[in-house]
């Protein structure tokens, strides 16, 4: 009997232990481990920092490094050589952001299924397969090889890697960041390949938009004439990055606005548009085409300080932990402050003692698709230039959390990997992808050089070899120069090359010629006293090279208008970054109001119209007018395009807002205004505008009540989501104004991921803020402590130290690593 009692109890105990050990599902934690206060999530409940000073032994350093961590948890590194500096950057970044670094790199490398499983409807597996088929890993390997060839980048990248690994080697289970405990895995060693992958992750966010597939479908569906109306390449009003140069009255016959002799345009191949080709699926997870950024610089003659001012605010998807990590790097060769990308060494946007710089996305198309003609079902050979070329078949392995393995055979051609075929995307006509990010390049070197640059000459040298993702680099120096340069590697294209899917069997459709680097649009110290970019067209139609892409039509006009001010101060620069004025609303609302049949409006509706008429196009957080405008516009936009577009079964992109506004202005009875679902009625613009207004009023009344309840920030619901998509770690309903097409480009999930204003001078002063926090630890008070200030429009004065004992430092922790 006693034995029975024992065995029962023993069984219960064992069962309990087993229950507590086993992960709840493959991708989550084990209860016992997780709740154990000695090892589990309680270990991540960090205390607020105390002021302290200590010495820590850290093998791997050649000489001691002083690290000062300020009250915002920004690390300031003081090293005695570049290698120790990079080592330390790897170490401190890993200390704060290890999980994020790894997660992003797993995403880039198509390995998310290892962490989170297949996903609902295999969504995660599909995304991983796409990443590999797109050539992310291939591109990263090429970049890594190239970076290893250069002495400087090799040393820096290897040291950074060692620093990250030094941190990882210190971690016991209890020390692991919370997400590892939650998802039940451990960090892998870091490598230089992973840094290369991280940079490709950025390239994918910024330079992997391709409309080839939807343009091809559009052309086949609508025909050339309508296609040109729906997708014009130029906008109804542009304000390009390089200002138009007026032709002088007594110009030479062969006068060009450009100071170089352009290479000849390659000949246009006959019949380059694919004849009525319809493609079944589009790329997954395409980056929002509204991801953009602003940057500008004001010369000393215009600046209130007498020295140049520079502003840069990159717009990206807003996530936690933030994509950026503030840091200061100091060694004998360099003293730079700015934001870094966890996973890569150096500072990406920032300033040093002599210069400042920032980036916006160029938006030019550098990804093309080619139809491949295989000889037979085996796909071992494909046609090119009349001959059969041998393809390479590689089998990629996907490890799915829980033990399953998935194999994907990816065919490689000399053009690039076959991204879409009968196994992926349901393509009968296989498409290979050619992407600038595949080509060997050393982006890390550009940033290394920028960090150490002292003047315009250094800046141009730094940009010279930069390839992808193409950016508009704004520049200002202490000595008074301001400049902007659209830098990337670009194909010298024949007109419309890259707009549609190309023929992979024809040599005349390949990427054969490239635009010489010095012919990229750029300008130094223009007469108007400022340079700026907001993802718009780089130049007017006088630019002698053809290019295509996706370009902004509103923010650029606004900033160029604002910068006409006689004198610009630091406060002005900040105010411009937060400007809520919408030129898009300015362009279209008067027309919408004009078409409204006021006789047919209720009293309440009349009141709303009155409000709209008084409105000054400001998308302020507390206003009601933006709510009704936006809802009205969204319904109108949808009512124009939805009926025709949803009838088509292949992927198409709806025309841009600029195109839509242009069409609304030009015509009352454009054929797309007609609603196909009402065959007996032929709607005009006026009908659509009135119907949309009525519908908007009904919807808003139902959802929010009367106009007094409408508040733009609440309606918009800006949110910042944790990378693992956990609500508990995310922030919702952030009280901030702005929207797309506005300088304060904060929409629901995208916005200014970093706002920086730099005043050059004998002593550089800078201000910055980003919507997140330095710590990647969900349990830390520094996880999201900047968000409220960012939303309120506050900037922190950036602590730019000259040495570790710098008196202005409100030191919190000072650590000497040796």
């Amino acid at each position: 009997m006693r034995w029975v009692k024992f065995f029962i109890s023993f069984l219960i105990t064992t069962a309990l232990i087993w229950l507590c050990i086993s992960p709840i599902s493959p991708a989550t934690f084990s209860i016992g481990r997780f709740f154990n206060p000695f090892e589990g999530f309680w270990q991540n409940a960090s205390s607020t920092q105390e002021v302290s000073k200590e010495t820590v032994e850290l093998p791997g350093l050649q000489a001691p490094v002083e690290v000062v961590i300020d009250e915002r948890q920004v690390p300031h590194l003081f090293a005695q050589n570049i290698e120790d500096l990079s080592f330390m950057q790897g170490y401190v970044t890993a200390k704060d952001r290890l999980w994020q670094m790894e997660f992003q790199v797993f995403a880039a490398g198509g390995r998310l299924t290892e962490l989170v499983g297949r996903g609902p409807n295999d969504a995660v597996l599909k995304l991983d397969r796409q990443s590999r088929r797109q050539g992310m890993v291939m591109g990263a390997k090429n970049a890594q090889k190239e970076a290893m060839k250069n002495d400087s980048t090799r040393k820096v990248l290897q040291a950074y890697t060692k620093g990250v690994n030094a941190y990882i080697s210190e971690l016991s289970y209890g020390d692991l960041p919370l997400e590892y405990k939650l998802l039940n895995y451990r960090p892998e060693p870091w490598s230089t390949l992973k840094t290369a992958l991280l940079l490709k992750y950025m390239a994918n966010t910024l330079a992997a938009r391709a409309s080839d597939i939807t343009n091809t479908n559009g052309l086949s569906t609508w025909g050339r004439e309508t296609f040109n109306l729906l997708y014009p390449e130029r906008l109804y009003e542009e304000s390009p990055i390089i200002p138009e140069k007026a032709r002088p009255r007594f110009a030479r016959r062969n006068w060009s606005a450009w100071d170089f002799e352009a290479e000849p345009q390659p000949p246009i191949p006959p019949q380059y548009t694919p004849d009525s080709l319809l493609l079944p699926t589009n790329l997954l997870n395409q980056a929002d085409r509204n991801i953009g950024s602003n940057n500008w610089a004001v010369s000393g003659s215009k600046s209130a300080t007498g020295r140049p001012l520079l502003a840069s605010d990159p717009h990206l998807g807003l996530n936690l932990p933030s994509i950026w990590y503030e840091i200061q790097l100091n060694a004998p060769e360099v003293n730079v402050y700015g934001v870094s990308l966890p996973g890569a060494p150096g500072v990406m946007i920032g300033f040093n003692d002599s210069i400042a710089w920032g980036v916006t996305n160029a938006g030019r198309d550098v990804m093309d698709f080619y139809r491949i003609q295989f000889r037979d079902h085996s796909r071992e050979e494909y046609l090119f230039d009349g001959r059969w070329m041998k393809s390479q078949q590689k089998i990629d392995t996907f490890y799915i959390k829980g033990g399953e393995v998935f194999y994907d055979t990816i065919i490689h051609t000399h053009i690039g990997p076959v991204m879409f075929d009968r196994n992926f995307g349901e393509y009968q006509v296989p498409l290979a992808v050619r992407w600038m990010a595949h080509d060997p390049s050393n982006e890390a070197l550009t940033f290394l050089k920028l960090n150490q640059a002292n003047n315009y000459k250094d800046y141009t040298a730094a940009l010279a070899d930069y390839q992808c993702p193409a950016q508009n680099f704004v520049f200002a120096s202490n000595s008074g120069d301001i400049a902007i340069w659209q830098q990337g590697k670009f194909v010298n294209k024949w007109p419309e090359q890259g707009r549609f899917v190309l023929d992979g069997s024809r040599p005349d459709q390949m990427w054969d010629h490239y635009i010489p680097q010095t012919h990229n649009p750029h300008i130094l110290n223009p007469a108007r006293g400022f340079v700026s970019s907001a993802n718009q067209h780089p130049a007017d139609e006088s630019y002698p090279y053809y290019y295509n892409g996706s370009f902004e039509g509103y923010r650029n006009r606004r900033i160029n208008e604002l910068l006409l001010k006689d004198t610009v101060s630091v406060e002005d620069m900040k105010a411009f970054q937060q400007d809520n004025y919408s030129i898009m609303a300015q362009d279209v609302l008067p027309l919408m109001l004009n078409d409204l049949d006021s006789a047919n409006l209720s009293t309440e509706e009349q009141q709303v119209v009155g409000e709209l008429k008084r409105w000054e196009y400001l998308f302020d957080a507390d206003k009601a007018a933006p709510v009704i405008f936006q809802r009205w516009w969204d319904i109108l936009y949808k009512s124009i395009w939805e009926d025709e577009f949803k009838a088509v079964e292949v992927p198409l992109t709806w025309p841009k807002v600029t195109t839509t506004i242009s069409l609304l202005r030009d015509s009352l009875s454009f054929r797309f205004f007609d609603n196909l679902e009402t065959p007996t009625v032929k709607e005009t613009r006026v009908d659509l505008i009135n119907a949309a207004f009525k519908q908007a009023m009904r919807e808003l009344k139902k959802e929010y009540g009367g106009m007094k309840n409408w508040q733009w920030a609440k309606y918009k619901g800006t949110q910042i989501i944790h990378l693992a998509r956990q609500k508990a770690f995310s922030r919702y309903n952030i009280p901030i104004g702005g929207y797309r097409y506005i300088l304060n480009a904060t929409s629901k999930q995208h916005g200014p991921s970093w706002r920086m204003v730099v005043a050059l001078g004998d002593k550089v002063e800078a201000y910055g803020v980003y919507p997140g926090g330095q710590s990647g630890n969900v349990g830390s008070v520094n996880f999201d402590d900047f968000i409220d200030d960012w939303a309120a429009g506050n900037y922190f004065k950036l602590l730019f130290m000259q040495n570790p004992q710098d008196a202005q430092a409100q030191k919190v922790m000072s650590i000497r690593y040796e």
Partner: protein
Amino acid sequence: MKFFLRFILILVLGFFALKFLPFWSVALVAFAVGLLLSKERKRRMFGKNPAPPFSFWAGFLAMFILWGTMAFLSDHQNASLLSNKIAQLLTQSDQPVAYGSYAMILTSALIGALLGGFGALSGNLLGEALKG
């Protein structure tokens, strides 16, 4: 007295064991103490009437206090930032959960307590079974 001895032994030994061993060492320690202090061995050692087996509750209470206190201290110096988020995460709720931090402390305490209780009981019953 017997209860208190068990209780304090499990708590102290548990504290040191957990510094080096995974969470199930809770049950292990409780098991060992339960076994060593089981009625039969006590009878052989002290020759007195054996005490009632409060083993389960000794183990339960010891671990409840150990895990509960450690959790509370961690929570306190963190101003309950993390525990509230974990509570929201585990309930997959849209809003922060009321009394979330207390729930997390309690849950940790209970898990440790159950492991400690059943571990101690098992050890004690083994001791009983072996006597014969």
